[in-house]
C-alpha cells in the first residue's frame, strides 16, 4: 500500500514538473531586443532606437522599431532584424539603414530623421509596395565614389551559380531619392556569394 502511495505522489510530482515546463516564456532564443543610440538629426542629442525582432511564426518574423519613449512602434518591418547603421552621406544629413532578413535576402531600408519621425528615402529600383529599399544577399554600402562630398549608395548582387564576379549598381542621392545611374560587373578576389 505504501508503495502505491509513493508511486502516486511521484507521478503527481512528475506531472507538475511537466506542467511547469510548458509555461511559455516571453523571451525565446528566436527573439532579440536591442537598443542603439544615434544622433540621427545631428542636434547633439542622441536618439534611442529600440529594436524588437521576433520569429513569431515559422515565417520571416517581424521587426519593430521604437524611438525614444514611444509606446507604439515607429516602424514595423517584415523580417528578422539583421543590423542597423548610420552614415553621414553629406554635410548635415545623417541616414539610418535598417537591415532585416527574409529568406536568404537582406532588405536594407534607408531613413532620414525629420521632426522626430523616420522618413524613408526611396531607392529608384525598389518596387513598393512589394519591397522598399534594396533586396540583395549582401549589404549595400555608402561610399563617396566620385569624390563630390556626397556618398553614393553601392549595391551588390551575386551571380547564380557563384563566380568571382558580382553586379554592382551605383545610386546618387538627389535630396529625395537614391537614383540609379550606373551598373557594371566587377571581378572579385574570392568567389562572391
Amino acid at each position: 500500500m505504501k508503495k502505491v502511495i509513493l508511486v502516486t505522489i511521484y507521478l503527481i510530482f512528475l506531472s507538475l514538473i511537466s506542467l511547469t515546463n510548458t509555461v511559455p516564456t516571453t523571451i525565446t532564443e528566436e527573439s532579440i531586443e536591442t537598443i542603439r543610440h544615434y544622433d540621427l538629426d545631428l542636434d547633439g542629442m542622441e536618439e534611442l532606437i529600440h529594436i524588437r525582432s521576433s520569429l513569431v511564426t515559422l515565417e520571416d518574423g517581424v521587426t519593430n522599431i521604437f524611438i525614444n519613449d514611444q509606446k507604439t512602434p515607429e516602424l514595423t518591418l517584415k523580417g528578422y532584424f539583421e543590423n542597423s547603421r548610420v552614415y553621414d552621406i553629406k554635410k548635415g544629413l545623417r541616414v539610418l539603414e535598417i537591415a532585416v532578413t527574409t529568406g536568404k535576402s537582406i532588405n536594407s531600408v534607408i531613413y532620414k530623421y525629420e521632426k522626430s519621425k523616420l522618413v524613408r528615402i526611396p531607392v529608384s529600383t525598389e518596387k513598393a509596395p512589394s519591397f522598399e529599399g534594396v533586396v540583395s544577399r549582401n549589404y549595400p554600402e555608402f561610399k563617396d565614389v566620385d569624390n563630390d562630398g556626397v556618398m553614393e549608395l553601392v549595391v551588390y548582387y551575386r551571380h547564380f551559380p557563384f563566380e568571382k564576379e558580382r553586379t554592382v549598381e551605383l545610386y546618387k542621392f538627389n535630396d529625395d531619392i537614391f537614383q540609379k545611374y550606373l551598373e557594371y560587373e566587377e571581378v572579385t578576389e574570392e568567389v562572391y556569394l
Partner: protein
Amino acid sequence: MLLIHEDKTKRVIKGKEDIKFSSSSVLHLIILTGRAKSEKQISKSSTDDEELTIQIDGKIFPKLGSDSNRVLDSPASINGGKSHNLSKTVYILTNLSGKEHKIVLTADNPPGSAIFGSLQVYSLDSVDTLTLEPKLQAEDGDRREWITFVLDKFLLNSFTVELNLKRRFIDSDDVKVIVDGDIKKNDRSILHKLWYFIASIFTGENQTETFHVNLSIGLHYIELWADRMPTLRRVIFTGLAFEEQDSIEDKIRKKAREFGLDPELMVRVAIVESNLDPLATSPVGAKGIFQLMDITIEQIAKLGYKITDPYDPNQNITGGIMYFKWLYEMYEGDKEQLEKTLAAWNWGPSNVSKNEPLDYESLPEETRRFINKVLGK
C-alpha cells in the same frame, strides 16, 4: 598517390588555424607532424598538457570508447602528456566529399599552443593494399606516442610493420603496437611483453611482423609508441576497403526522394546556391551547400531538425531539403507552386502570397535571377 597540398612551415599554433585545399578525389591520406609539451615541460605551475587536435571537413577523430565526442587524449591528436615534446606523426586515411576541403588545427587551452611541423595531403586512387615507406626515425627519448594511423570508416584485414631497431648497451630501441586500444603483446620476453618489437632480444636490426586484425568498417587507430630511436621503414595495409560514400549530388537526390521532392530540382538548387561546396560561406554568413542563414537554421529547428554543424553536408542537406519541403507544401495546390517556393526560398515566405499570383515584375532582381537559373530559363 598524388601530393596535392604541402605545408612545411614550422610554427606555433595558438588557438585555431584553418588550412584549405582543393581536391576532387574521394580518398585522401593526410599526414600531420607536430609536437606538444607536457605540463611539466611547460612550467612547474602548469596544470594542463599542450595538445593539438585535427578536424577535416567537420569530421572529428575522438577517443574510442564511451565518450564518442572527446577529441582530447585521442590517439589522433598530438598530446604533450603522451609525446613529451617529441615529434609525433599522424597518418589519416579518409574519404572526403566535394571539392573544397578544410583542415582545422586546434591547440587546446590552456596553455593554447603547440608546434606544427608539417602537413601533406595526398589523393589516392585505390586502396586494397596500401604501402607506405616513411623511413621515419623517432627522435631520441623515452617511451611515448610516436605514430598513429587513423583509418576513418575503413575495414582492414592485416597490416605489416617493418622496423629498424638499434641494440645499445644500456637502452635499446623498442616499439609498442596498439590497435584500437588493444596492446599487442609479444611472447618473447616476460619483462617487455607490452613492447612488441624489442631490440635487446636480438632478432636482427630489421624486424617485420604482420598483424591479422580483421577490423570491420569503422574508425580505427593503429598506434606505434617508441622507446629511443626506432625507424619505421615500411608499413603495408592489406585488405583495406572503405565505406562507399555518396557524392554530394547523390546525398541530395536520396534525401529529396525521402521527402517526396524532385531530386534533380534539389540538385539544381544546391548548385545555384553553392556549387555543391559544403564549406561555402557568404559575406553575411549563409553557410554550406544550401547556403543556410542562421535564422533559417532556427526555423529548421522549429520544424524539428536541429542543425549543429551547417558545414556538415548531411546536416545541411537534410535541413535545407526539409525547409524547402515546408515551403513547397505552403503553396500546395497553386499552379505556380514551384515558382512561389523558389521565390519564398530566396526572398522569404512572408513576401510571397499564397493567394495572389506571382508577379515577376515586382520581385527583387536577385530573386528573379535565382528562380530563372534554377528553372533553366
